[in-house]
Structures are given as C-alpha cells and as structure tokens.
C-alpha cells in the first residue's frame, strides 16, 4: 500500500497520478481534481497562485491519509498532489486518486480527503482578477481566499 504525496510547482497529470495507484487487486479508482474556475462571484479570475508551508503541508496530508486508512480498510494506494505557484484558468490545482478493491470506500475516501484537505492543510490560494481596463492589462486586484465557501 503506497502513499504518494507531492507539493509541486509542476503541472499535474491526472493520468500519471492514476497510474501511480493502479493495482491488480483494485476494482475501483476514484479521483477528484480541483481546477481553476474563470469566475468568483461577479469577478473574472485571471489566474490563481498557490503558496504552501511545504513541510507541514506534506506532513498534514500524510496524517489525513493515515486517518483515511483507519476509517476505510479497503483502500489500496492513495496519491495526493497539490500544485503551488501559478495555476491559470482550467489548470489542475489538486488531484486525489484512490484505488480500492470495491468502489464504495474509495469514493467515500476521496470525498472525505478533499474536504479535510481544504480545512486542514496549510496551503493558500490568491485569486488575481482581470482588470476593468483591458487596454493596460492591469490586474483587477487580488485576494487571499479562505475555504469557508461552498464545498
């Protein structure tokens, strides 16, 4: 049973991540990908930028995985990868991939892991909005988000 944890500036590949959790004993692979939306409320998002307290983020993701394995015994391999740095619209900021013998526990674990990650792991997202003045290309402001919004 492998735990794969990465906080990385590299672009995340879902396919590569899923390949890391494949197993002949697995009947199910469940995944969640977070992607950058082009809007927040009425504002047009130009890009996101992520920052992390990397060693604590890695440790904290490991704790979540350990807790998930206690809750769901059917899980085989678990990979959690979070991008840091710029993350333009449409790009993937986080991927969670879980293989399991049967589907129910894998699906539930992915759902729980992303909820917990959003609350506990020290990663921060800054949204940079498109400016009103398209000629100058100036940014329309930026804000550090907090995960108290709609799941």
């Amino acid at each position, binding site marked *: 049973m492998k735990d794969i944890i990465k906080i990385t500036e590299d672009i995340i590949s879902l396919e590569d991540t899923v390949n890391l959790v494949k197993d002949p004993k697995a009947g199910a692979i469940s995944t969640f990908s977070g992607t950058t939306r082009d809007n927040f409320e009425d504002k047009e998002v130009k890009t996101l930028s992520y920052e992390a*307290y990397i060693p604590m983020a890695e440790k904290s993701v490991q704790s979540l995985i350990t807790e998930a394995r206690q809750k769901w015994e059917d899980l085989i391999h678990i990979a959690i990868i979070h991008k840091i740095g710029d993350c333009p619209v449409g790009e993937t*900021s986080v991927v969670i991939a879980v293989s399991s013998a049967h589907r129910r526990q894998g699906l539930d674990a992915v759902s729980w892991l992303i909820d917990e990650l959003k609350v506990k792991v020290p990663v921060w997202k800054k949204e940079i909005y498109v400016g009103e003045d398209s000629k100058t290309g100036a940014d329309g402001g930026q804000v550090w988000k907090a995960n108290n919004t709609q799941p």
Partner: protein
Amino acid sequence: MTQKFTVLYFAAAKDASKAESDSFEWKEGITSQVLTQLLLDRHPTISTVLKSSMFAVNMEYMDQDSNWTVSPGDEVAIIPPVSGG
C-alpha cells in the same frame, strides 16, 4: 549564548509583515498571548491577519485554548485561514 526561535509568515501574514521569517530571542514563558505581543511589536501591520490566524509550532497546530509556551529552537508558523484544494 542567546537562545532563539523562528517565526514563519505565510500568505496574508507574509504580505502584512513583508517578511518570510524572523528570528526572535527566546525567554521563559512565551505563551500565545506573549507571542502575539512580540509579533505586534515587531510588525504592527500584522494585527488584522493575526486575529484570524492559528499558530503552528514545529508543524503542529496549537489548540488556542490550551496552555503552551515556545521552546528554544521552535519553528512557529502563523497560519492564516487556509484555502488549498
């Protein structure tokens, strides 16, 4: 020899303090209240973000209601509300 501890600033705390980290002189009895005052003395602009932040000591969140003090060599981090995912 003077003993030290480190403070790390992230996200809004980094923007407010305009610092990524600081070194502080350690002394006996640095509770979260004392630590807050030390931080405000050094970075008055950090006041707002500090109110909504948590402390992590050596990469563990500190319970806001429990008693803890900083030890020499500790790595203290100011953790504004997280927004990963």
